[in-house]
């Protein structure tokens, strides 16, 4: 199993290299440079800035120098718009915030989605099922940036329970995590219901019932493990979409996470920062996918690791 995990993790490296190369070429091919501005900057100044940041060299030489730095020292280079900070420093500060938001939202989504889905399946075709699934459908259909202002309006501006922005204490985290989690929770509820429905009719569950186990025990001890397989396989892509979707949440709640830098850096043509953030996002997403695949195989004895 560890060999499989190792293999999956090693497979990330070539993909990341492709991502890095693509983005490196992409940011340099498109028009506009990091030192364009509304004010007319003297040509000598721009030339000096380009020389300082090594942007006057041929692209392939820039690429290999950048890659060499990254591989040997882990250095992603200086940023162009925040002259006193390196890309590494910015990521070191903002990545933990984004990860907190993403992981907390994923956990909350599982905690909300799985019970909803199980209730829907166990009470199939009753009002509880209809209600749970209608809620889930609503959750899939309302974008995060619509949820956020509605929650802020209710819980912050009318009830004064929670702050409207920033990321300082748990009170600041409640609304952003909830808004990030709900769409994913809704999706999980639908998957959990489908998975449970399939398992509930299978022979081993009928067997467990025939032994005289209580319905509760049948569901929790026997059916749940198999019924959760679709949910587990969705956790990887779900975490990705929550993390990326949280760019909107970070923007709305003014959270100092990585997503904010990402769009801003792309608009500013801050080459190194775009590269750094893209690579970190890519790595986190692929790493999580690999872990989820291994977890899946542990849960489902029918899957063989190759």
């Amino acid at each position, binding site marked *: 199993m560890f060999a499989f995990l190792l293999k999956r993790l090693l497979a*990330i490296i070539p*993909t990341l290299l*492709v*991502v890095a190369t693509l*983005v490196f070429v*992409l*940011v340099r091919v*498109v*028009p*506009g440079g990091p030192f364009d501005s509304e004010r007319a900057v003297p040509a000598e100044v721009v030339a000096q800035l380009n020389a300082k940041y090594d942007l006057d060299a041929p692209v392939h030489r820039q690429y290999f120098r950048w890659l060499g730095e990254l591989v040997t020292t882990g250095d992603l280079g200086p940023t162009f718009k925040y002259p006193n900070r390196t890309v590494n420093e910015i990521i070191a500060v903002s990545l933990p915030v984004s990860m907190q938001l993403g992981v907390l939202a994923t956990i909350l989504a599982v905690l909300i989605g799985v019970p909803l889905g199980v209730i829907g399946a166990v009470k*199939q*075709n009753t009002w509880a099922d209809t209600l749970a699934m209608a809620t889930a*459908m*609503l959750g*899939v*259909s*309302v*974008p*995060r*940036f*619509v949820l*956020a*202002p509605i929650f802020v*309006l209710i819980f912050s*501006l009318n009830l004064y329970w929670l702050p409207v922005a920033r990321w300082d204490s748990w009170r600041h985290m409640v609304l952003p995590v909830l808004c990030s989690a709900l769409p994913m929770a809704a999706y999980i509820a639908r998957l959990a219901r489908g998975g449970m*429905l399939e398992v509930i009719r299978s022979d081993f569950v009928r067997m467990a019932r025939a032994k005289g186990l209580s319905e509760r025990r049948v569901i929790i001890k026997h059916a749940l493990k198999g019924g959760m397989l679709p949910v587990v396989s969705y956790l990887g892509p779900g975490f*990705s*979409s929550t993390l*990326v*979707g949280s*760019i*909107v949440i970070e*923007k*709305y709640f003014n959270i100092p996470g990585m997503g904010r830098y*990402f*769009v801003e850096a*792309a*608009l500013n043509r801050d080459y190194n920062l*775009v590269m750094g953030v*893209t690579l970190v*996002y*890519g790595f986190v*997403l*692929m790493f999580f*996918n690999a872990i989820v695949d291994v977890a899946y195989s542990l849960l489902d004895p029918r899957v063989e690791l190759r």
Partner: protein
Amino acid sequence: MSASSVPSAAASVPRAPLPPTVPVPAAPASPAEEGSSLWRDAWRRLKKNRAAVVSGFILIALVLACILQPELSHWRYDQAELQVGATPPSADHWMGTDYFGRDLMARTFFGGRISFAVGIIATFVSFVIGVSWGGIAGYAGGRLDALMMRFVDVLFTFPFLIFVILLMVFFANDQTFLYRAYTSVLSVFVAHPKDPRYFPVFQIIVVFAALGSISWLTMARIVRGQVIALRSQPFVEAARSIGVGPAGLVFRHIVPNALGPIIVYTTLTVPSVMLTEAFLSFLGLGTQEPLSSWGLLAASGAESMDLYPWTLVFPAVFLALTLFCFNFLGDGLRDALDPKARKD
């Protein structure tokens, strides 16, 4: 769609030259066909699903409203009256006006056109790429199949939305070769293709292409699975024996018989694409002012929601209602077309 596939499915069943050991009842054709085809069955099941039927009607009504309302209303979506400013719903402006005094109803229904167009065109792009890719991989099999699907696997691990954001930032401006291509096509139709009025349309076309080009992966997997399941069926053998080429086999005979799952997935792609367009618009990378889309309207409404709640409520409700209906319709179609995945 259904009409083209029914004959090929039916043609595979009766073999005329068989000796009459199994007497086929020579009943009149029409009652025998009643309820016999997959499509008729599916249609009957779909009609029983009340949520799906209602969703379908709501969607039709919404599309009609988006087509007609901007033509009938005497307010235009970009007609600003700054001295009016934001006003709540009234007899004059049924949905109120926005910060610039523009009629929100006109903007909402005009935005609906763009939202629907993005959803449908981007889905069509993903449909074309996905069906061709999956169809070719599934039919070819062997090394080509392995290569093509490995490519899909690798793309699946890409952080795609990240790429779309980069593409939108980098390509949706007026200095790229894409824009030059666009203006040269445009010059066929209009006198001044570089007129800034045509620029927002260019950006929307980039949105179509970007969203379409990332949504085809799952479609390719679904189609490949279907093609592999169908390619050695007798009716395909029959078509091959009368000299139909590989392209004809895949796209004329196999794909039409795999339409069920394809239609279901297509229906579910539309809302997800519309949602992604809204996401991009919220970040300022999708549809641009003075045009409107539900995502863009909801995003700007979200900013001033504490002062002018109606600017968020109307576009958000239309967006959510549309996504809701597409999802219900997709679920209903899956239940109707895919008896194995059916609830009961």
